[in-house]
């Protein structure tokens, strides 16, 4: 029987199998940030354990950083302390850190791929559930807890039980205006938030093959929102072209050798998955969420379903929505384009292309937060900033920002925010905030109109 992409990468990284127990899995790259690493460093220090492979760790500051005036000292004492702690820990342990203001600083899942740290066939971990993003390269990448961060520090390995395999195939051609974000929101709405728990997911079919790396990252990013620890897409020419010439990518002959190996990774034709789902690209439309988990999504043209269930009703009550109603024409005062899901250059191009020549609605506060310093620089270079400025949008500095609202970028109590981020949990974007997840196109249109609109009408 043939092997899946996941099998091939996993099996190449197994150091040892414990009888009737987990396997010792070798980790190639470990990404860290300020929020989930300090306790792991403390633990090693308390137990007098050195960091085993510091040159396989890369650090960035992203979760808890301001998106304005990054050249000034961070005002919030606790945040500043956490950032200083990261700097100290990295310095002490010889770990490369792209700190606030550095030209390579950015959201961990945006900066690592754009620097070529992420490569096909690798195993990668980070104390962040959206590490699944890197699976876009045919990488086994997944989020870990802080105890596991300490384990990787200590041994460059983790003890894990091999997850089951799941494949989601989407064939056909996407309709005009349907973006990668809509594809993944559609899949999660169809399958639910725990359908992938215990599984690693491979995305296959025309739709993903024809997607850019940015789009593939958006899709893999949200694998965790259906419970899957990670998502993967087979590496192909699109992948190789993206990785080539990146700062940390192998060069010359070494690169060609790698490509030859990467070409052996795609799933064999006779491989069998534990679970398979197939969807038709033509059925996908621009999506919005209406509830408090990412599985509660509908096509923007659909009405909220009528389900009699206490958790469902609690969720609608929080959102102040009614069963059976449409979201079209709902007034929206906040729009956020950013987060590790949708803060890459392509996302801002989509937004700018729609916004150009239009004016933001007066009631809307619109934050555009690039995923990295490099994305920010590209936005300026391509003249997109001028488009945003002219339309009344606010381009901020890179970071996780209003996706989880650890910094000052909080959506006020009771307000709706159409957001390109990944989670619409209660209070995720600030206490009492109400999140509607959508693509950068739907978000941009909402900002212009000041309300949710049927974008499909404008497109056709």
């Amino acid at each position: 029987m043939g092997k899946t992409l996941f099998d091939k990468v996993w099996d190449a990284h197994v150091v040892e199998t414990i009888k009737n127990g987990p396997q010792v899995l070798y980790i190639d790259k470990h990404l860290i940030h300020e929020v989930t690493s300090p306790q792991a460093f403390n633990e090693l220090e308390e137990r007098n354990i050195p960091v085993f492979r510091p040159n396989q760790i890369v650090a960035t500051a992203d979760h808890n950083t301001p998106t304005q005036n990054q050249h000034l000292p961070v005002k919030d004492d606790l945040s500043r302390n956490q950032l200083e702690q990261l700097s100290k820990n990295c310095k002490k342990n010889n770990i490369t850190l792209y700190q606030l203001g550095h030209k390579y600083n950015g959201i961990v899942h945006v900066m690592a791929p754009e620097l070529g740290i992420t490569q096909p066939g690798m195993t990668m971990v980070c104390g962040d559930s959206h590490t699944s993003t890197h699976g876009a390269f045919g990488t086994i990448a997944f989020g870990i807890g802080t105890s596991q961060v300490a384990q990787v520090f200590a041994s460059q390995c983790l003890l894990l039980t091999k997850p089951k395999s799941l494949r989601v195939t989407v064939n056909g051609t996407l309709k005009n205006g349907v973006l990668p974000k809509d594809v993944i929101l559609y899949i999660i709405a169809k399958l639910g938030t725990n359908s992938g728990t215990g599984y690693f997911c491979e995305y296959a079919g025309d739709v993903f093959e024809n997607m850019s790396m940015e789009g593939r990252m958006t899709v893999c990013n949200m694998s965790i929102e259906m419970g899957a620890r990670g998502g993967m897409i087979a590496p192909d020419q699109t992948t190789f072209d993206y990785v080539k010439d990146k700062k940390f990518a192998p060069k010359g002959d070494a690169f060609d050798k790698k490509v030859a190996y990467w070409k052996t990774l795609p799933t064999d034709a006779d491989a069998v998955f534990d679970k398979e789902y197939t969807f038709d690209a033509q059925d996908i439309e621009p999506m919005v969420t209406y509830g408090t988990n990412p599985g509660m999504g509908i096509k923007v043209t659909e009405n909220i379903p009528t389900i009699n269930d206490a958790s469902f009703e609690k969720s609608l009550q929080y959102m102040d929505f009614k069963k059976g109603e449409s979201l079209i024409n709902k007034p929206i005062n906040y729009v956020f384009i950013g987060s590790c899901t949708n803060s890459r250059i392509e996302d801002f191009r989509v937004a700018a292309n729609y916004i150009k020549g239009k004016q933001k609605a007066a009631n809307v506060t619109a934050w555009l937060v690039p995923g990295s310093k490099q994305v920010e620089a590209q936005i300026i270079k391509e003249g997109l900033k001028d488009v945003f400025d002219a339309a009344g949008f606010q381009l901020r500095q890179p970071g996780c920002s209003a996706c989880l609202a650890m910094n000052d970028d909080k959506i006020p109590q009771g307000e709706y925010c159409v957001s390109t981020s990944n989670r619409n949990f209660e209070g995720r974007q600030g206490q009492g905030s109400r999140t509607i997840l959508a693509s950068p196109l739907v978000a941009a249109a909402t900002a212009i109109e000041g309300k949710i609109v049927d974008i499909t009408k404008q497109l056709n």
Partner: protein
Amino acid sequence: MEKFTTLQSQAIPLAIENIDTDQIIPARFLKATDRKGFGDNLFKDWRFNKDNSINKSFSLNNSKYSGSILVAGDNFGCGSSREHAAWALSDYGFKVIVSSFFADIFKGNALNNGLLPVQVSAEFLRVLLDTITNHPETLLKVDLLNQTISVNDTSFKETFDIDTYKKTCMINGYDDIDYLLSKKETITAFEAKKTY
């Protein structure tokens, strides 16, 4: 890590599905650099009203419920990988979480902190929630050695699964670092002959 073998305790019901780690511990409380004190902010926005007064309708604030077992709805701990969620539950005093389904990362984090996730069938959970809601004095018994959860002195009982390795760790209070450190030579040898 604290050892765990058996526990007998009353339980607190929390019949909500898809409780995510942002509810267990909101992101604004993740600015600490140590593991202590997260219990104060456990379920912060459910335990407290907007004006910071106590939300009396929330089960953790209801004086008739107590104990170190939390019985929660399906898909507990989904969302963010923050281990702070496990730390907050432990720090508040919970030793066992019962649900019909746990999210992967949360489950691993709980086990790495001596907090036992007990996965039961949907039907067992439904009856259990009913029982403890209506009879808060009910004592539950969780026996890790035999992998059973039961309502004390009754035949209402179910077995639960746990990875054999993780079970040994919980019973002995070991963690994965101890094991991995003992494997350093094997790991170094693996690095030398990596094939990819």
